[in-house]
Structure formats: C-alpha cells, structure tokens
C-alpha cells in the first residue's frame, strides 16, 4: 500500500511538472463547455421551453455536470500504456514487484483528484460569469446511487482504456490511432459527453443502453437529474455491474495473450 501511496504522490507532482500542459488541457475543456453551454442556452432561450424532457435548468445542469463527470471518469494517465508497450518500457514494470494495473489505477486516481479540483474552480468561475439556473438534487438516496454509478463508471473507463491501449501488443505503431477512434470519438460521443443521448431516436437509445458507454457519463447524470428512477436505476446498476465483470475479464484475458506476444522491442 505504501508504494502505491508514493506513486500517487509522484504522479501528482509529475502533473505539476508540466504545468503549461495541464493548464492548456483545462482551457480546452472550458472552451468545449462554453460551446455546449451557449448552444443549449440558445435552444432554451425561453425558460418555459421543454425539449427532449429537459427544461433550461436541467439541460444547463447537464452541461455543468459533464465538466465534473469528465474530470472524475475520463481523467486518466493510462493513455500512456500503448506507448510503453510499443517502446518496450513496460519491461521495467514486469521486472518490478508491482502490479501494473494497480500502478496505473493509482496514477489515474492522482490525475482525477487534480482534474476534479481544477474543474470545481472552473465551474465556480463559469457559474459567476454565466449565472445559470442549476438543478440541485437533494434526495440522499439518489445522491448515493449517483455515487455508486460513478465508481462503476471509473472502473468501466479504466477497463475500456486498458483494452484499447493493449492493442499496441498487436499493432505497436497504431496504439494511439486506436485510442483516437475508440476513446476520443466513439466513447466520448456514446457516453453522452458531447450531447445528451436522449435526443437520439428511441430504438437507438435502447440499443445503446445495452452497451457500457452510457453508464460512463449519461446514466449517472440522468439519475442525478431525477430523469431515471426506481426500477430503471436497478436495471442500470445490473447492466453496469455486468459490463464491469465482462470488461474486467476481457482485460485479464487480453493482457495474458498480449504478454505472450510481447517481445520487448526497443529494449
């Protein structure tokens, strides 16, 4: 446990070593939020408007909620795993008495803590400037459900990211391309990171609910907004747990297969 605490501290310091890098990343996040905020503000110019089951208050809460949830779920350092596999650096870890998964989970946690702290500051600033009416959930049971969904979302994303990165075992030069396609585009869109998924046709939504993607951002936010309740929450929890199990087993399977193929190129 002590060594992972040390990794956490080092990782935290490392993020600060590249301050400009980090600040620019946050600036980019803010720009994306500004685009989404004004887009939805324009649609809900009239506070009485109700479209896709949202009113102005709920859609703007969705926009701000995405900023926080992205920091919690999508902030991860495990994006570097593909690079370590392709240049052979992973060998160093295989020889050390340390779990490679726990190592990256710890580094991801450091990244999440840092990004979350910054996103809270950004939200405060944006809140003061834009003065949106936000929806505050006060039901403790619902808040607890959101918390559980968030933990599951973090695990799901970790598994998805690891599986994508492990493609570098088979195509060492294209690990980052796979990440661009599956993480930056497919996961971002299908998780509700760009727009709420309930504007899509009902059949498409139904299919989407059987995949792990909506449970990363969209579902937890819907639970928070009170748009999903009762039996649907239970159904969501069961699906989320099932995906955590499937993806976790897939990670282990692909890791074992990948290691057999790994030949420490570059070492």
């Amino acid at each position, binding site marked *: 446990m002590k060594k992972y605490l040390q990794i956490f501290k080092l990782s935290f310091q490392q993020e600060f070593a590249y301050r400009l890098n980090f600040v*620019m990343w946050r600036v980019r996040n803010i720009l994306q939020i500004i685009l989404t905020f004004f887009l939805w*503000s324009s649609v809900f110019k009239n506070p009485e408007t109700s479209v896709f089951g949202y009113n102005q208050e709920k859609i703007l809460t969705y926009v701000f909620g995405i900023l926080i949830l992205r920091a919690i779920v999508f902030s991860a350092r495990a994006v570097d795993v593909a690079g370590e596999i392709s240049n052979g650096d992973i060998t160093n870890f295989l020889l050390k008495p340390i779990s490679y998964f726990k190592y990256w989970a710890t580094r991801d946690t450091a990244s999440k803590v840092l990004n979350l702290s910054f996103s809270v500051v950004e939200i405060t600033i944006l809140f003061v400037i834009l003065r949106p009416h936000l929806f505050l959930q006060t039901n403790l049971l619902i808040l607890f459900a959101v918390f559980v969904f968030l933990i599951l979302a973090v695990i799901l994303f970790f598994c998805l990211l690891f599986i994508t990165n492990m493609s570098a075992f088979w195509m060492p030069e294209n690990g980052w391309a796979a990440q661009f396609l599956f993480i930056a585009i497919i996961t971002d869109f299908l998780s509700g990171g760009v727009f709420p998924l309930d504007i899509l046709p009902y059949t498409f939504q139904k299919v989407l609910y059987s995949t792990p993607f909506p449970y990363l951002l969209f579902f937890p936010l819907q639970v928070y907004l009170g748009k999903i309740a009762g039996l649907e929450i239970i159904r969501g929890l069961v699906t989320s747990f099932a995906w955590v199990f499937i993806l976790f087993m897939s990670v282990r399977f692909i890791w074992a297969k990948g290691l057999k193929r790994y030949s420490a190129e570059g070492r």
Partner: protein
Amino acid sequence: MSRNSFLAVFNQKAALTIFLVGKLIRFFFFFAFIVFLLKGTKSLAGYNLNQTLLFFFTFNLIDTISQFLFREVYRFRPLIVSGGFDLVLSKPINALFRSLMGGADVIDLITIIPLTIATFYVASLLNPSILHTTFYILLVLNGLVIASAFHIFVLGLGIVTLEIDHTIMIYRDLTALGRFPIDIYKEPLRGIITFLIPIGVMVSFPAKAIMGLMSPIGVAWSLVFGGLILFLSLKFWKFALKKYTSASS
C-alpha cells in the same frame, strides 16, 4: 514534399484507415446531432435545419481544407526544439512555405471532395442567387486566408515560445465554436469570436452570405479584414524569425 507525405501515410495503412474512419464517425455523429436537435426544436438561433447544416458543412469544409494544407504545422515544434529548422532555412525554398505546407495530409484530401459536393448540395437547398453564391465562394476563400494567417501566427509563436502543440489545439477548439451559427453566443463572446479572433468571419460569414444575410459592403469588409490578418501574420513571422536562436543545433 506532399508526395513524400502521402507515401509516408500510405505506408501505414492501418493508421490511415483508423483515422479516416474516426473522422467520418465524428462527422456523422455531429451531423446526426444537428438533425435530431433541429427535429425537436425546429430552429436554432432563428435558423432552420438546412441553414444550420450549411453552417456545419461550411465549418467542416474550411477546417478540413486547412488541415489538409497546413498539417506540417503540427510537426514544426521538433524542428525548432532540435535546431533542425536550420536545415530548412539553409535550403533554397521559402522557409514559411516549407513549414506551413510541406506535408499535406492525405486523410483530409480523401474527405474534401465528398464534403465539397455535400456542402454545395446543402447550399443549393436554400435556393441562393448567383450573387450570393459568388459571395459564398469568395468568403470561403477568405476563410482559408484567415486560416492560413492563424497557422502562420502559430508557427511564429512556436519560434518565440517553443510552444506549438497546445496553441494549435486551442486554435482548433476556438474554430470549433464556429461549428454552429455564431448567433448562439451572447455578447461579449460573440464580438470576440467575430472580430478579435475572427472565427465568425472565417466560418460563419460565408454561410450567412449565401442566405442573403450579408450586404456587399459586409462582404468587402470581410475580404479586407482577411487580407489585413494575413499581412499581420506575415509581419509576425518575420519578427519571429529574427528571434530564432538555433538552439540545440
């Protein structure tokens, strides 16, 4: 140079395919989003579905062409950091041309033709007059001039500050604000992205012109503005070149 760049990309067929598929999926997702959104809301900032789609297609057209032409900018930092830019300066080719357009991107080239056809199809649905179509073409070209100026500024900043990667990504994020009509933004943001960082002139004005929402004076002013920005960027490039220290070489 472009042929070499194309050959390099064709050698990595898997990466080429993945990126192409990724770009198409992203385009399709945004397209679907606009269609479903406008089906529910009927209008966005006063524009109907076809008009909003034209803003989106025009943004993509200008963005894709500038990415196709100026991809080399994304590879400029290593040259500056390593001092390899010395070799560019010593060759009998314009250093700005080499740094700006020395490696066209084949992935974007593949998408330009269908995108142009689709843009003109969406534009034709608005039944524009010949004059408004001419304005549109002129302003799209002007948008490319402004995009060139932005990239030259980024190169100049790269020489002065050694920072390229984030500046270019922030430029991309800022231009993405033009994916939708700039009328959705409130003041002072709308003013800033129209005049200070002229994304509005670059990607929104062409679409407005074809809808007959721009006067001939507005079009002329935009062209002058584009020329001025390009002039300033060239001045900045010359200033930056004088600051180049050839470090690490």
